[in-house]
């Protein structure tokens, strides 16, 4: 035991020289416990999954926007071969009619070799397609504000060239939109479910921490701490854990998304890469996507804070 100093009367108040390494303001609820680290890992994993889902939703939204933008500004005239008609004459007639429509910006006839090439994935390369009745295509680029005259153009085309059909891609756009919206909604649903799971994990961990710190909580009460003070202490602990877990999970998700983008750009030359690019564009989620990932991580931390505070207040009310 240390030797006591002289009596109080002999004491002289002096400016305290505190050791440099003296901890003076440690959290009242310890953060670096085993349970704390386990919870941080759970939060990191959940944030990672939620952030990936959010990233996937943003990717799908961006890709579908690109598809819609590309497809909606185009129309295709398809002219089927008809033994009773001259396909080249029909082609020229359709081009002439299309060129006369104000809403159409440009008209391009797809050359026959190009049309034939479109069949290669199904029929294979090197086949002589001369005998096959391969339809001819005319691609029409539309002006931004395409008006109702396109409907009239469709009717006129059917009248003048019975073997032609005008495809405005509406069905295709609708299907793409449905698919993209399903992906986006699934992503949002997964994010919400994961956030709920994170909230529940924090609630259980808070109750565990409170039960484990019951003695400390009683001491805090008896030295004059009110419920709000104790709740703040627990909340700050869980916000810290949430922020750390969120940062780790969100950081890992950003890394994975960046890595996938890099791999996609490396494979761009390969056929698989082309298909990927056709589906997802450049496989980049952009600033919006990274913003969504960071937002998810911050929401997880906020949920950790709010849920722990709520749980602690309920627990303390139960003790009263």
């Amino acid at each position, binding site marked *: *035991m*240390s*030797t*006591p*100093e002289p*009596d*109080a009367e002999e*004491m002289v*108040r002096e*400016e*305290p020289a*505190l*050791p440099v*390494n*003296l*901890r*003076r*303001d*440690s959290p*009242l609820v*310890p953060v670096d416990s085993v349970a704390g680290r386990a919870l941080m890992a759970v939060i990191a994993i959940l944030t990672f999954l939620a952030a990936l889902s959010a990233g996937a939703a943003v990717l799908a939204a961006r890709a579908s926007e690109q598809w819609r933008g590309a497809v909606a500004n185009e129309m295709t005239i398809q002219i089927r071969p008809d033994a009773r008609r001259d396909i080249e004459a029909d082609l020229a007639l359709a081009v002439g009619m299309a060129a006369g429509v104000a809403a159409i910006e440009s008209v391009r006839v797809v050359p026959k070799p190009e049309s034939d090439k479109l069949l290669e994935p199904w029929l294979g390369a090197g086949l002589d397609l001369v005998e096959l009745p391969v339809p001819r295509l005319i691609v029409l680029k539309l002006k931004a504000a395409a008006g109702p005259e396109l409907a009239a153009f469709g009717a006129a085309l059917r009248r003048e060239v019975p073997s032609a059909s005008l495809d405005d891609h509406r069905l295709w756009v609708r299907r793409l939109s449905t698919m993209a919206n399903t992906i986006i909604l699934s992503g949002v649903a997964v994010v919400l479910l994961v956030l709920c799971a994170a909230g529940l994990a924090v609630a259980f961990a808070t109750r565990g921490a409170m039960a484990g710190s019951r*003695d*400390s909580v*009683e*001491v*805090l*009460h*008896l*030295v*004059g*701490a*009110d*419920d709000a*003070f104790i709740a703040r202490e627990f909340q700050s602990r869980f916000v810290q854990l949430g922020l750390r877990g969120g940062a780790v999970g969100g950081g890992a998700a950003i890394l994975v998304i960046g890595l996938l983008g890099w791999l996609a750009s490396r494979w761009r030359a390969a056929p698989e890469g082309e298909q990927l690019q056709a589906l997802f564009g450049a496989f980049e989620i952009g600033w919006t996507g990274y913003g969504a990932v960071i937002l998810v991580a911050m929401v997880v931390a906020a949920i950790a804070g709010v849920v722990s505070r709520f749980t602690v207040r309920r627990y303390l009310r139960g003790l*009263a």
Partner: protein
Amino acid sequence: MVRFENVGLRYGMGPEVLKDITFSIAPRSFQYLTGPSGAGKTTLIRLVLMALKPTRGLVNLFGQDVARLDNETLTAFRRRMGVVFQDFRLLDHLTLYENVALPLRVLGKEETSYRAEVVELLRWVGLGERMHAVPPVLSGGEKQRAAIARALISRPELLLADEPTGNVDPALGRRLLRLFMELQTLGTAVVIATHDITLMELYDAPRLVLADGHLHVDA
């Protein structure tokens, strides 16, 4: 300051551990709470601290019936009391400095505002060189002195000390007793729970004697 009238306490459906307890503690008074081990001294202290609710009787603290206290008032009353627990109840992950400063910290005070006071008190109880240590590495006596320092740091109106000299050598025990007497002269009402006859003989004061769940006062 504290008034108990016919207070009884039982745990669950068990027998009453405290029966018809009637006593009062006046401001600036000094008294011992004594009795054999297991007589209920700690339980009585917990009743005064409002850590336990009596099953019957009236407990009046600082002029108010505790049965009608809301949480805010309860906290305000606890801030007017200092307590030394028999088992110290220090927070193991905090340094001695932080443990002693705890009652001031929970009031929301800035660390710099109480630093001098905490260091002075730690030095006075002989822990000036140990302020960076955490409780698990301290001896029983050191923990006891830290617990006493924590109880005194907020200059309470009522000090409840449960066996405060149980783990210190006789010299420090006498010194701590002098400190408690000094606190009394400065305006604190002091209740020392002890079964140390030698300590009680050093300074004559009324004794609240607990035996078989009943309490009588030896003036």
